[in-house]
């Protein structure tokens, strides 16, 4: 979400916009429905990509076709791959008018108190010029330090050598069916490169560069943090993202080199008809720290298990995730930590809330490979059920191939306490608000890790979810 300063900046830019910037809108282009090698060529042509990327896409498509739908997780049978438009030029989204945005979404914006400019942007209507300018002023600062923060398409154009070196090295196309799909049709996402020893103080927010294609369905993000550097990347918005497409399948690859740090924060709040199937993985080298903070509120189905592969001694991985499953939603989320070197440590904290028949599953993998002695890992997953019809499951997989390790795993499922509700209500607090407070308290240990604006928004969203006004 934009800070106050951003909003001030937005105001100024608004005027420029009114002076005719919109003349520059590019012609609309989108591929036909369905997926075949022709579509891949069209995407590649449109993007004017290097040959190696075109070939990579074609190979990925074959892998996608060859792999069956995963059956171990959420129910994906509702996805009709032939109905999906796989590539839409962003101008298409800009062309949507405010009137087409569903009432329920507008109402939610209202209640969240989101400023006009931002609402339109969130709904996929205009306003991208605004963020573009904010982004540019920050970009100058970053450029001085040698930091690269671009949309992935520009990244490939302007820094082909770096992209080529790292692209798909963490998550190969063959990793899983949806990684293959993303590899074939990816568009947008972020490219971040932080040079050796540089500490980026302001979190990099994808929001700043919305003009690019990052709101797409098949974003591809690549983050490289060089030795001793640090960065916090924040993706997504807390307001519901209205999309006319029903499948979102992103890939995020992160490389954290020796003694570097990376934190990646996402709050996902897709509208409740979206399948959100995301592959996120980081490799952390010696002494490096990787932290995933992941909030999943929206979507119909989410399958997302951010992973940290600890490749060097003393690497540290952390995954904090919150899932909220309301009516008709299945949040199948969790995390994977792979200890591949000695003296590595990891922590997974997962909190889920299920309400109105929603289902939240924790699916986690903790693996300590041979040779990763003196590794430590602690996994805690807590589920809160708000009513009788809701559901929570835990699927923890633990594979330990080394002797001298310390591993902890705790899981709890609780129902919202009647006594807690009564106690709060006896202090004049209405039932919905009391329940929202209890839920807020339940996720507080994770929310306090979020940047301030996101924490505030997150709490408000939870309150809205509790009122049942979203979706």
């Amino acid at each position, binding site marked *: 979400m934009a800070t106050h300063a951003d909003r001030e900046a937005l105001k100024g830019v608004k005027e420029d916009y009114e002076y005719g910037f919109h003349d520059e809108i590019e012609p609309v282009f989108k591929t036909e429905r369905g997926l075949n090698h022709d579509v891949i060529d069209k995407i590649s042509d449109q993007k004017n990509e290097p040959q190696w990327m075109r070939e990579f896409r074609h190979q990925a498509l074959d892998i996608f076709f060859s792999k069956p739908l995963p059956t171990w997780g959420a129910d994906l049978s509702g996805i009709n791959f032939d109905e999906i438009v796989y590539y839409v030029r962003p101008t298409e989204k800009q062309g949507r008018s405010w009137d087409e945005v569903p009432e329920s979404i507008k109402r939610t914006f209202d*209640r969240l108190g989101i400023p006009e400019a931002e609402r339109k942007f969130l709904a996929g209507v205009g306003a991208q010029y605004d963020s573009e300018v904010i982004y540019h002023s920050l970009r100058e600062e970053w450029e001085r330090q040698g930091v690269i923060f671009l949309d992935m398409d520009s990244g490939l154009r302007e820094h082909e050598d770096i992209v080529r070196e790292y692209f798909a090295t963490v998550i190969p196309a063959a990793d899983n069916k949806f990684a293959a799909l993303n590899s074939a049709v990816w568009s947008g996402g972020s490219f971040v490169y932080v040079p050796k020893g540089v500490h980026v103080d302001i979190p990099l927010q994808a929001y700043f560069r919305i003009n690019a294609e990052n709101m797409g369905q098949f974003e591809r993000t690549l983050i490289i943090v060089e030795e001793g550097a640090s960065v916090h990347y924040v993706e997504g918005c807390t307001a519901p993202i209205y999309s006319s497409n029903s499948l979102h399948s992103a890939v995020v690859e992160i490389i954290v080199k020796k003694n570097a740090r990376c934190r990646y924060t996402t709050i996902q709040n897709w509208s409740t008809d979206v399948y959100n199937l995301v592959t996120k993985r980081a490799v952390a080298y010696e002494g490096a720290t990787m932290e995933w903070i992941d909030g999943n509120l929206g979507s119909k189905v989410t399958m997302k298990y951010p992973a940290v592969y600890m490749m060097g001694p003393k690497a540290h991985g952390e995954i904090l995730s919150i899932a909220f499953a309301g009516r008709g939603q299945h949040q199948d989320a969790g995390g994977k930590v792979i200890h591949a070197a000695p003296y590595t440590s990891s922590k997974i904290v997962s909190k889920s809330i299920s309400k109105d028949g929603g289902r939240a599953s924790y699916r986690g993998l903790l693996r300590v490979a041979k040779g990763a002695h003196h590794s430590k890992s602690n996994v805690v997953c807590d589920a809160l059920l708000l009513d009788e019809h809701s559901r929570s499951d835990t699927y923890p997989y633990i594979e330990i191939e080394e002797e001298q390790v310390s591993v902890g795993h705790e899981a709890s499922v609780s129902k919202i306490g009647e006594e807690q509700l009564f106690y709060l209500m*006896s202090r004049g607090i209405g039932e919905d608000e009391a329940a929202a407070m209890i839920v807020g*308290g339940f996720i507080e240990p994770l929310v306090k890790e979020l940047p301030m604006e996101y924490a505030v928004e997150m709490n408000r969203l939870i309150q809205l979810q509790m009122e049942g006004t979203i979706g």
Partner: protein
Amino acid sequence: MSVLEIRNLHAAVEDREILKGVNLTLRTGEIHALMGPNGSGKSTLAYVIAGHPHYEVTEGDILLDGESILDLEPDERCKKGIFLAFQYPVAVPGVSVANFLRTAVSNVRGYTSQPVDAEGRSGVIGSNLMPMREFRKELNEKMKEFNVDPSFARRYLNDGFSGGEKKRTEVLQMAMLQPKFAILDESDSGLDIDALRVVADGINKLATPDRGFLLITHYQRILNYVKPHYVSIFYDGRIVMTGGPEVAQMLEEKGYSWVEREFGEAVAA
């Protein structure tokens, strides 16, 4: 003056009758102590007054200034000025005392029911709160006045509090919410001598002419500090005797076996 009148109140939990015809009138400006053996139904009475959903009122009524409150939700009863200091305050992890109290006070004082925009819509829950600075100032003052360490504002509500700390925090809540009628369920239990003084002082500070108290206790001890106008003996789901402070004294001397001899048969009959 306000009156809280409990009339022939019968209440059951899971089909077992626990309150068997309670009659009791509380008036603002008065302190009414209620004593009775373990399991006789004192906390049940307190819960039923506050509106706990577990207990079913099978007969009788509770009237606040002549109007029944039985159909009101617990939060509505609180807004009408009824406060219950719990025998066992409930922990709410992750919710700070300050945040909780600000929400409670904002509800009770009507901030939250104000419209957020010109069209008169009310907002996201929690969006209309007492202004932060005003609230903080008041909370700080009250914490000082009622001897609660300021660090408690940031702690999670009753989470990991000692027994005594919980009871003090209940008194602080009462001070912030300024009820008309306060039911204190064993606010004096489990306190060391100093804490007992603090809690008793707190009650005395709040015992103004516009407030009435029902003081549920097992011990004469607190009545040395807080002077009740009436003392009632509660036995097997009803009040069997009411008098002045001398009743507490007598109970202390004779014990509940005396009550049982005196009233046991009448109750059983």
